[in-house]
C-alpha cells in the first residue's frame, strides 16, 4: 500500500514531467527528420552528380556513426568551434539529422518506384523539374515511403532516451534520478518501459490512421 502511494505521489509526477520533455524531443525531431529526409531522398534521385554524391555521403555518415557519437558531437564537440547548443536543442538536431538519413532511404526507394510514365506525363505538360517533384512524384512516393518512415518514427521514440546521455533530462533521465534516490530501479524502469510501449503503440496507431487516410484507388498494394 505504502509502495503504491509512493509510486502514485512521488514517482508518477516526476515521470510525467520527463514524459513531457520526451514528447517535446520526439515531435519536432520526427517532423524535421521527415522533412530533411524527403529533401535528401529527392536529391539522391533527382540531384546533379555532385548533389547526389553529397547526399550519399550525408547518409553514409549519419547512418554509419552511432547516434551516441552524433549526440556527443553536437553537444560536447560543437562548443569547440564556438557553437553552444542546449542539451534539448542538441538532442533535437542529433535525432533529426540521424533519422533524416534513414527516412531518405525509404523516400529514395519510393521515388525510384514511381513509373517513368508519370514523369513523362508531367514533362509533356510543361512542368519544371521542381514542379514535377512537388506535385506529381512526391505525392506518390510519399504514400509508398510512409510505412518505412513510420517505422523510423517508432525507432525515434525509443532512441529519444539517448538524450539522457547528453544531460537532457527526459523520461529515462527522470527515471534514473528518482531511481538512484529511492533504489527502486526495477519498479521504476518497468513503469518507464511500459510508458515507452504505450507511446510506440499510440504512434503506430496514428501512423496507420494517416496511411489509411492517404490511401487512394490504385495504391492499395503499397499498404504495409
Amino acid at each position, binding site marked *: 500500500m505504502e509502495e503504491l502511494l509512493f509510486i502514485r505521489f512521488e514517482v508518477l509526477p516526476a515521470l510525467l514531467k520527463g514524459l513531457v520533455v520526451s514528447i517535446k524531443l520526439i515531435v519536432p525531431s520526427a517532423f524535421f527528420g521527415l522533412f530533411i529526409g524527403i529533401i535528401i531522398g529527392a536529391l539522391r534521385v533527382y540531384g546533379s552528380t555532385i548533389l547526389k554524391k553529397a547526399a550519399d555521403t550525408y547518409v553514409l555518415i549519419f547512418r554509419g556513426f552511432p547516434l551516441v557519437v552524433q549526440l556527443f558531437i553536437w553537444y560536447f564537440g560543437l562548443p569547440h568551434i564556438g557553437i553552444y547548443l542546449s542539451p534539448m536543442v542538441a538532442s533535437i538536431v542529433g535525432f533529426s539529422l540521424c533519422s533524416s538519413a534513414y527516412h531518405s532511404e525509404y523516400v529514395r526507394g519510393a521515388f525510384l518506384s514511381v*513509373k517513368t*510514365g*508519370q514523369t*513523362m*506525363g*508531367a*514533362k*509533356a*505538360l*510543361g*512542368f*519544371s523539374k521542381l*514542379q514535377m517533384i512537388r*506535385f*506529381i512524384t512526391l*505525392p*506518390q512516393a510519399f*504514400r509508398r515511403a510512409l510505412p518505412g518512415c513510420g517505422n523510423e518514427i517508432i525507432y525515434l521514440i525509443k532512441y529519444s532516451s539517448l538524450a539522457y546521455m547528453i544531460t537532457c533530462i527526459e523520461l529515462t533521465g527522470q527515471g534514473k534520478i528518482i531511481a538512484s534516490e529511492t533504489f527502486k530501479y526495477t519498479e521504476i524502469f518497468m513503469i518507464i518501459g511500459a510508458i515507452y510501449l504505450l507511446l510506440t503503440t499510440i504512434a503506430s496507431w496514428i501512423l496507420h490512421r494517416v496511411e489509411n487516410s492517404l490511401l*487512394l*484507388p*490504385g*495504391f492499395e498494394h503499397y499498404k504495409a
Partner: protein
Amino acid sequence: MAHRKTILRIEDMTKRYGSKTVLKNASLSLKEGELKILIGPSGGGKSTLLQCVNFLVKPDKGRIWLDGEEIIHSRKKELYAYRQKVGMIFQDFNLFDHLTALQNVQIALVKVKKKTKEQARTRAINELERVGLGDHIKKYPAQLSGGQKQRVSIARALAMDPKVMLLDEPTSALDPELISEVLDVIINLRLHGMTMIMSTHQIGFASELADELVFLEDGNILETGPPKKMLSDADCERTREFCSKITELYGNSF
C-alpha cells in the same frame, strides 16, 4: 488551303542510343489544321520522333520551330513554355495515378499556367465533358477503363490550349472494343481543325483522315505522301510491302 501557315517545322532530327541510330535526319513540317500520320514497323522510330519533338527524348541533332520561332531546349524556361503549347498523348496514357480525372486535367492549369483554381476547374470540367467523361470526373485512374483513361489524357492535353498535338499510338494499349471511343474523340479534334502528328497502326483510320502519311523505317523517313497514293501505289518498294501487309492485318476500314 495552300496558303495555310506552317506551325511546326522539324529539321534534321537525329537520335542515337550508343552505336544504334534510331532516328536519322528526320525532317517534317506541319501546316495549320493538318494531320500527319506516322506509319511503319514497330521500332522504326515513330515514337522516338514524336518524343524528340517535345524533347522528352533529347535529340543529338536537329532543330525545331514552332510558329516560326526556334526552340532552344537547353533554355529551361523556353522548353517548359514550348511543352505547354505542344500536347502529348502517350500510348499508355500516363495519367497521374494519385489524382482524380478532374485533378489530372486541372493540375497543370493551376501549377504551370498559374490559373486560379476556379478557372481551372471550369475549364477541366468542360474538357472532360467534351470527351464524354462528365460523369467520371471524381474517379481515379485505377477506376477508369483504358479508353476512359486515354480520353482523360486527351482532355488534359486540350486544356492547355495546345497549338499542336502529338499522339503516340493512342489506341495500341486498348482493348479492341475500346478503340473506337478514343478514335471518335480524335476525329472530332480533326473536324475542329486541330493540328496533329500521330503514329498508329490503324491504317484504315489513317487513310480516311490523314492529309499525309509518313512512312518511317529503321529511323529513316522513306516516303511521304497523300494516303491514297501511299496505300495503292507508293514509290518506295518498302512502303508498298508494309502497306499491303498492314492492310491485310488490320483491314481497310475502321
